[in-house]
């Protein structure tokens, strides 16, 4: 299965949906920083993988897929739920990549400083894509 870009998907989102994700992203970052400030970096680090934005994303995906099917005369409820579940399955694999990002930060930041964030990002993408391909090839259903 080839990865492709569908630019028309951008038209499905309304301006307030972009604003919602911007605000949630900003708040999640403020939350992580504030927790670190008051309870130390160990507690703050936990909130670097807090699923705040995921709630909004999954709900929007479900809504968009349902609306797309409703335009064709179907209820779209089942399709919406399945699309959100697929997104969650992908996020599950991406989380393993995110743990690799955390590992890079833990081990490399004292020596590499900002470079550790770049190495961590490459590790996140590589491991996430590898796991996604592996799941596809082995036909594993979550």
């Amino acid at each position, binding site marked *: 299965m080839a990865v492709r870009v569908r630019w028309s998907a951008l038209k499905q989102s309304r301006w307030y949906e972009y604003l919602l994700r911007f605000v949630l992203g900003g708040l999640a970052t403020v939350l992580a920083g504030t927790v670190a400030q008051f309870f130390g970096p160990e507690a703050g*680090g936990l909130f670097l*993988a807090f699923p705040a934005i*995921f709630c909004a994303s999954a709900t929007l995906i479900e809504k968009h897929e349902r609306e797309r099917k409703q335009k064709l005369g179907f209820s779209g409820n089942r399709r919406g739920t399945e699309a959100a579940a697929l997104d969650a399955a992908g996020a599950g*694999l991406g989380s393993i990549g995110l743990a690799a990002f955390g590992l890079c930060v833990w081990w490399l930041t004292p020596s590499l400083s900002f470079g550790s964030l770049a190495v961590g990002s490459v590790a996140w993408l590589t491991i996430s894509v590898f796991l996604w391909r592996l799941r596809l090839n082995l036909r594993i259903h979550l």
Partner: protein
Amino acid sequence: MEYLIRFLAGGIVVSAFAVLGDVLRPKSFAGLFGAAPSVALATLGLALWKDGGDYVSVGGRSMILSSLALAVYSLVVCQLLVRRRWPALAATSAAIFVWLAVALGSKQLLIG
């Protein structure tokens, strides 16, 4: 002022990854971007600039545990959606308690 910078940096990075997730297909691949290090890049970038590498390194260790909690969270959300047919908002909101339990529990158990 620091909170405003944090808010703007987080909003921009999270939105950028969210847009990537919107346009990429198939959906399962786009889902990978739901667990992108967006909040981490914004938060750790600012913390590196302000507090230095050793401080940030400690946060990275906890992040490994919360990432694994996010994997469990995603699995639970997936099951609630597919098997129980819950609406996405209900499933993703309820599963936050699972994330909290796994993240805080594993931190207490492994780091203290």
